[in-house]
């Protein structure tokens, strides 16, 4: 969860004037990043989390003999 997600998930009634300014600033920076050609959409899946659960590859029991 990034700073914007944290701010957006809060009860809007509890946001301070500074929080609102931060949200406006974030979106202006987001626009500038997009104009500069940066990828700004969040990945759907947290790849790093999944990678951590993968076990190391196990060597095949039978040696594969290439035909060619």
């Amino acid at each position, binding site marked *: 969860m990034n700073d914007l997600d944290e701010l*957006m998930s809060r009860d809007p009634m509890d946001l301070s*004037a500074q929080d*609102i300014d931060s949200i406006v600033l974030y*979106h*202006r920076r987001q626009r500038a990043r*997009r104009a500069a050609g940066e990828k700004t959409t969040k990945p*759907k899946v947290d790849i790093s989390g999944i990678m951590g659960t993968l076990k190391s590859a196990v060597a095949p029991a039978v040696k594969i003999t290439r035909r060619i």
Partner: protein
Amino acid sequence: MDGEFLKPDHDVSASLSHLLPGTKLQFAWDSTSLGLLKTCPRLYELTILEGYTPRDESVHLRFGGEFHTALEQYDHSRANGVRHEDAIHDVVRELLIRTVDFDPSPDTKAGKYKSRENLIQLVIDYLDHFGEDPAVTFIKEDGTPAVELSFRFELDWGPGIEVQGKQYMKELDDPQGIREFSQPYLLCGHLDRVVHFNDQLMVLDRKTTQTTLTEYFFRQFEPNNQMTLYILAGRVVLGTMIKGIIIDGCQILLESPNRFVRGMTYRTEDQIEEWLGDLKVLLAQAESYAQANHWPMNDTACDKFGGCQFRGICSKSPQVRERFLRADFEKLEEGKRWNPLIPR
């Protein structure tokens, strides 16, 4: 033609019907219902009379409604002398509060483009883009800014069925009956903003889209049912010469900055007269459909605008359509259906 602008708190009950009592004959029309009828009478029947709506339609409606409300608040603030930065600050705060429950699924196309975050991004981008706008809000005679104006005005004629009924009541010499049969057609709608622009008075309308803002995009507004109605409405209700419409095209993008392009469309008096003449014929057709209780399918329109939402239904045999409609669409309760008489 006489007309009026309605205040947002105008006392119009949600139960007030746009249909004549006990009939499926609509007497209060707006650009949405007229547009549907012009495109395909069956599409009009399913959407307006039966109240069927796609299950993700609420995302589009909510997104569009919140976008317009945010810009309305900004326009009001600016017309009252509030600085650009302060107005944006207030608009974003209000938007966050109003949309706290708005969480469309990111797995749908609608939800991917029309998320809460993208809505806030679009509002800020639009207001920054048009921050120093040469279009200045028109101030009405009562001193209030001409922003988000719901309008309603009477046409010079009413449903033919009503005319027959009135004649019958005259024969019966029944004054109460004559009054009941005196409902003229009404045209209703909503103008985003009226502005001074290049020494002309124009209506300003914002359109959100996912399509590219090219000349092709703006060509759809000339001729265009909604734009002609809005120019006519501005002239009738403001009693002044509205030259045309400024269209602010707002393209929602995910990887690039949102894009904004401004276009214009104009109408002459003769074009307006022609539109009204066509409308008379169209509404007479609607009466005949209502009397026959049959709204024919226009099967040359099914592939227009990326394909009709009911294409999958109309392509089925009539006996099984109802089952598919209930599975794929939501049938709104009568009070929640599209009603031109309810101001925004």
